[in-house]
């Protein structure tokens, strides 16, 4: 082949060969660049169907543009019908060759594993699984950049199962249990293989071995690898943890995404970069050097030690800062604030100490909080969106008033607490370069304000002015409604001041109230039985109550049903929010009870709290309003319920029902007008 020209590629030299075919270095005579040509074994592409499949897979892989994935330029065919891939040609060695010299330095292991992980992660994002990650498929260029080779080709060669090809290629040792059983594989198979490679880089040996292929497979399926610390002593716990979790035989127990490994490796890399991590071998070396100079003069030693310590400290801090800034810039470009938050936190540096003002503006915004009364303790927790929506650790920023406190952009759960007052919890969104001012009035710890929050005077989404009012944090629960029933709420006409409409007909109270009975005929919600709510549902919102009953409860409690303007102001405030918690619509299922799981205890979705501190405004149960925005005889319900898709929260999906209608998805909450407040 050497010296021959195939298509417009002049073959220069043979680079290697194996089960996946032979690789040649070649010159692209058209573009005048050096490339690598991989000729696949003819038996893999012997028929037209195989060829088409091969071309499609190669095309999919060629769409992967990432610095850690080998670039595929094109797929071509020789005159005699042999397919070959044209790839970028890199100067360097495969990881297989690097490992022939023994285990690698830990810092080197971290760098290589991190880059392999990043390449895999990119491919997984596009739905492409490598299926054949092994040291021979990992190229390390002379510039220490890792390139993953042969993406997607394993599928073509049938290496999703054990085949002759896989055997000859030495692939079996890197196969996951599900792969060796011939089952369907996903990205977690690549996680396994990455775990095997890390184990091998660290220890210099494979985790699963055998004299012959079936013995290797048996070991993969049944054995636990020898613990790394039996084989090497300077391995950080994080590496051992990665290997241990990556090599879980049950895919569900394994890391589900390569991204999880990347996070740990990045943190480890930062420790190396900042000098925080010193291996036991390095410690030994330091001790040996110290002994060498122990007999030097004391004065010189003290001066030297002080000078060195100062130098290291200053140098280390500067290095940390530079490394931090270098990593932060791309995160800012990509608006990856969660990642930036973690990075800054891990570095131990504060956002305000970053040297570049422009960067601070693009990373953070200011929060000011005023409360009535002043002096409330402000505790924040960042809401992480990755890997899953979760509340971060609490941290305090002092007492109110808080003025222009710089925070990294993102979502925060704020808790205001003050002696003698009800605490208040709500969500805010900090946008980069913006200042947010929050004013809240706390309520005294009195029975009459229990479970309520105050909404200060303001305008709602329609621009309508809404006077201040109090509103229940939660929907009224079964237990609370039982108090009304026990207090003979259904027997006292004074609690039922409205005209009673039954089936659209004005009906005397005595007759009307006879209709509002439970399954056993006792006065109460339709889904209760024997005058009691269903077992274990005391904290669930009461359902199966008509508008008339909701109104009677309010009358008994000295409250009222919210009107349209009040309810929407409590739910969305005056800002153009999409949902009570802000604009994040992709995590709705984690913040609100939509989707047929039945009612849930009130407040079960703490990250769905509204800007004013109300829970379950979206989902759980739809809520009766005082008024109607439709036919006068009908009463409005809003907010969407557990039976609805989430778009039912929107005001355009408000619906109206007869005031005697009751359903398993309609409940209510109460308001109190401010003139009644002391």
């Amino acid at each position: 082949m050497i010296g021959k020209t195939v298509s417009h590629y002049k073959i220069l030299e043979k680079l290697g060969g194996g089960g996946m075919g032979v690789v040649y270095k070649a010159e692209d005579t058209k573009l005048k660049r050096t490339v690598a040509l991989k000729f696949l074994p003819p038996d893999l592409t012997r028929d037209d169907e195989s060829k088409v499949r091969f071309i499609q897979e190669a095309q999919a892989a060629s769409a992967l543009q990432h610095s850690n994935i080998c670039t595929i330029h094109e797929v071509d065919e020789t005159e005699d019908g042999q397919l070959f891939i044209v790839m970028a040609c890199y100067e360097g060695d495969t990881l297989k060759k690097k490992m022939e010299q023994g285990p690698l330095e830990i810092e080197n292991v971290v760098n290589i594993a991190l880059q392999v992980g990043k390449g895999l992660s990119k491919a997984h994002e596009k739905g492409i699984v490598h299926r054949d990650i092994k040291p021979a498929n990992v190229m390390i260029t002379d510039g220490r950049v890792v390139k993953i080779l042969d993406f997607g080709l394993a599928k073509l060669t049938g290496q999703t199962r054990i085949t002759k090809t896989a055997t000859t290629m030495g692939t079996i040792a890197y196969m996951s249990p599900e792969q060796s059983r011939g089952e369907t594989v996903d990205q977690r198979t690549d996680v396994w293989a990455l775990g095997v490679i890390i184990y091998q880089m660290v220890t210099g040996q494979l985790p699963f071995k055998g004299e012959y292929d079936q013995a290797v497979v048996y070991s993969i399926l049944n054995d636990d690898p020898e613990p790394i610390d039996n084989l090497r002593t300077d391995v950080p716990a994080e590496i051992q943890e990665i290997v241990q979790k990556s090599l879980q035989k049950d895919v569900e127990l394994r890391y589900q995404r390569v991204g999880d490994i990347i996070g740990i490796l990045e943190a480890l890399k930062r420790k190396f970069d900042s000098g925080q991590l010193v291996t036991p071998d390095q410690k030994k070396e330091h001790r040996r050097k110290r002994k060498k100079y122990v007999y030097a003069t004391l004065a010189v030693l003290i001066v030297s030690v002080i000078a060195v310590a100062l130098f290291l400290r200053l140098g280390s801090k500067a290095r940390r800062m530079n490394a931090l800034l270098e990593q932060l810039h791309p995160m800012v470009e990509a608006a990856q604030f969660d990642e930036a938050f973690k990075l800054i936190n891990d570095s131990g540096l504060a956002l305000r100490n970053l040297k570049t003002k422009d960067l601070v503006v693009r990373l953070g915004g200011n929060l000011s909080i005023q409360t009535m009364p002043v002096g409330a303790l402000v505790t924040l927790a960042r809401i992480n969106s990755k890997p899953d929506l979760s509340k971060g650790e609490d941290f305090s920023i002092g007492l109110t008033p808080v003025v222009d406190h710089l925070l990294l952009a993102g979502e925060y759960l704020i808790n205001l607490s003050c002696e003698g007052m009800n605490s208040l919890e709500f969500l805010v969104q900090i946008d980069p370069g913006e200042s947010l001012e929050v004013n809240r009035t706390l309520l005294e710890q009195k029975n009459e304000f229990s479970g309520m929050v105050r909404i200060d005077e303001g305008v709602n989404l329609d621009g309508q002015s809404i006077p201040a009012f109090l509103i229940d944090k939660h929907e009224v629960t079964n237990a609370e409604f039982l108090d009304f029933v026990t207090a003979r709420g259904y027997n006292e006409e004074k609690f039922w001041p409205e005209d009673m409409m039954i089936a659209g007909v004005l009906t005397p109270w005595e007759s009307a109230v006879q209709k509002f009975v439970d399954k056993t005929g006792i006065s109460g919600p339709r889904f209760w039985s024997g005058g009691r709510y269903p077992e274990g549902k005391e904290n669930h919102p009461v359902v199966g109550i008509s508008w008339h009953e909701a109104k009677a409860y309010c009358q008994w409690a000295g409250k009222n049903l919210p009107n349209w303007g009040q309810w929407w102001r409590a739910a969305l405030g005056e800002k153009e929010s999409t949902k009570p918690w802000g604009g994040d619509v992709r995590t709705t299922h984690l913040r609100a009870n939509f989707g047929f799981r039945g009612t849930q205890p009130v407040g079960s979705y703490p990250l769905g709290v509204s800007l004013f501190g109300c829970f379950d405004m979206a989902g759980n149960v739809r809520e009766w309003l005082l008024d109607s925005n439709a036919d006068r005889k009908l009463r409005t319900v809003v907010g969407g319920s557990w039976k609805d898709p989430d778009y039912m929260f929107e005001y355009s999906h408000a619906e109206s029902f007869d005031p005697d209608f009751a359903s398993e998805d309609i409940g209510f909450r109460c308001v109190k007008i401010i003139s009644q407040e002391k």
Partner: protein
Amino acid sequence: MKRSIFLAILVLLASITFLVGKVPQDERKCQWLDKPVDDLTFKTFLDFFKYDEDLPFEVQTLNVKEHEGVKREHLSFLSTPDERVFAHLYSVIGTSPKKEPALIFLHGGVAAGKDAPHYEVYSELLARGGWRVLSIDLKYFGERGTSLLTTFTEDEKHEKLYNNPPAYLAWMTQCVKDISRSIDFLINEKGVDPNRIGLVGFSRGAVVAEVAGGAEKRLCAVVLLHGGHFDAKEREHLPAACPANYIGRISPRPLLMINGTRDTDFFKETSVDPLFELAKDPKKIIWIEAGHAAMPEEARSSLLKWLQEYAK
């Protein structure tokens, strides 16, 4: 005498026609609801939905999960060269190897698409009922999200898609192609019975099903849950994307509609009743005393019974 009576009737009819023509614009009367396009015109619409039947599916299985006896495969396949459909395929664990019936499920207009818990529950319900259920993301929703829709509010969806006639036609065309490819996928890749593949759509998914049901003749039955002609905010469509031109062409395959009397999205009088009128037998509508979305147990039971009769 007879001639004068005839003339009087003609004058009367002309007056009625004139008055009908004067219906105010704000009532948003759709001309196709009065008179759907003729067969010759309709035939030209079908050209919109042609696709490359030989395009490989390039199926990618992303994960497999089991939930209380139901297996859910998360997968994707190529619909058209530049469009990959993401889907969940539900089936009861231990299903028999013989050719099974299947349903394609279309979600409503939520950001999460097929992944919204509401639709996962429906898909599981249908799977437990004995069908393999392919629940697909419609373009712009779920895993097929783009920058076109970001807040998924009704205002945004209507402004950018539902009330943007050219964009809506393009979207509807892709949706119908996706459904046709889903049928191909179920038959060729999953071995389901080609004669027993039904279509179930919810809300906006039902609107898509109205069009796809008329265009794709391989569907054995069509179910529209909380669907209708226009929703409360919809204005107009190009004729090739208007359900009124398709609903009558689902026949002779059976059609079931389930709607809420209190639905303020698809109003009974102006959206649902006129569309059902246009549909031809065999057709059935079940009214429930509810709003747009909630389907009580008896309605779900009626749905399963009807599917047992017509799609199994």
